[in-house]
């Protein structure tokens, strides 16, 4: 396996712009999960001028609904692969614009028009292998916090501490290159 570029959020624009489509990276630090219901709630809050429970500026948002196991020492992630990002396409650009997220992690990418907007907003899209839930869970060291539990375990906002989470493929970069475009 080739050497991975290591990313540590919060990411600055310089770091993000250096990433090229086809690069392989890993992430260490804090990653926040969000998918369908969390996107809806986040946008509702931000549109009315309210704050999210966690600052996502320069952060990494992971499209994922993890599977956790209850243990004596708290919640442990058993399996946590990516979910289909394209489902969030209609909210994606506004979400990135309002939160200032630096990188999205998911599977199957975003549509071409969304990819172009993400590039303009200096946000990269990183692909993780769908279905590789245990491989991802191995990199998750700790569940730091779970917000919005009322949305259900798959839809809540999980704040995760990860170490060398990857390999992730830079699939959409800030120059507008998109590996999903055939």
């Amino acid at each position, binding site marked *: *396996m080739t050497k991975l570029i290591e990313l540590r959020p919060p990411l600055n624009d310089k770091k993000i712009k250096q990433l090229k489509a086809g690069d392989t990276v890993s992430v260490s630090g804090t990653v926040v999960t969000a998918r369908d219901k969390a996107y809806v709630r986040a946008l509702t809050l931000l549109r009315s001028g309210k704050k999210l429970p966690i600052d996502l500026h320069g952060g990494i948002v992971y499209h994922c609904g*993890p599977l956790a196991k209850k243990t004596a020492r708290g919640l442990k992630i058993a399996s946590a692969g990516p979910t289909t990002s394209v489902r969030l396409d209609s909210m994606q650009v506004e979400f990135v614009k309002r939160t200032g997220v630096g990188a999205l992690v998911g599977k199957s990418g975003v549509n071409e028009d969304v990819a172009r907007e993400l590039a303009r907003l200096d946000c990269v899209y990183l692909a993780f292998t769908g279905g590789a839930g245990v491989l991802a869970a191995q990199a998750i060291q700790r569940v730091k916090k779970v917000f919005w539990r009322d949305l259900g*375990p798959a839809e809540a906002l999980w704040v995760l501490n990860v170490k060398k989470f990857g390999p992730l493929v830079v699939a959409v970069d800030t120059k507008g290159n998109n590996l999903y475009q055939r």
Partner: protein
Amino acid sequence: MPPNPTYAKDINYDDSFELDCMLTENEFRKTIIEMLRRAATTLPKDVINALKISKRREGNKIARLQFDCMLKNLKLARKLGAPICQDTGTFTFFIELGSELELDFDIRQTLSEVIGQATRVIPLRPNLVDPLTRKNTGTNMGEGQPVLHLEPMRGKRLRIDLLVKGAGAENCSRLFMLKPTAGEEAVKRAVLLTVEEAGGQPCPPTIVGVGIGGSTEVACLLAKKALLRPLSSKNPDKKLARMERELTDAANGLGIGPMGLGGRTTVLGVHIAKATCHTASLPVAVNLQCWAARRASARLVGDKLRVEVPR
């Protein structure tokens, strides 16, 4: 359920026909939970082999990396007994039930209860919600779940097949009501359109189930049931076998590749099943299964239910 004691006393144990055909609820529960556990954590051999063979065909670095991650994940999942994918899916049971088999429990209710139990102990992710309020039931139990297709058979036969499907792949499924004279080429176009439009969403390389004919619901059922067929098997119908080969090559020529990131492997196989249909109809259903093609099978041997796939 323990046998009725007065009844048990009356039985001649040496040549008891009834006893041979009795399946206890306990045996059934034990088998179903074992099937759910194995399906969530281990893939059948034919799928693993297909992934390994496909990896060797890939020239592109990113495509090979996707296969490496899949295969590494499978090893870890098996070793740790952890679900391969966090989307532990929904459950469809296909049961062939012999009419001479005596069951003193409600299959549907027992399946539902065992799934509730499996959700707690394996654990599985609670995936089921009300379709309108979207409220999660929290147990993977709910109205109309699990899906059960019961096929009555003669004799004492019992075969249980379990198909596990995540939403990423299921969401890409399609039903086409083609013109009755549209022919084979139109059927193929429908299949390729489904694969092309799905792109990376169903977690390719996928297994493509195709149901041709029957009626709307029969075509859908055939397409889904075709996903149970091992990748190592050959379609006994020569014409369908040829269509399967041609569609596999055409789909792999689309360049979608593993996880949609480009490459030579978009599908692991295409499985077609057909049924006769109305002269004015040509229903074609396409159901995609992700590379983590989870399934399990069990069969009644004597009075023991044996889980045969995956090993």
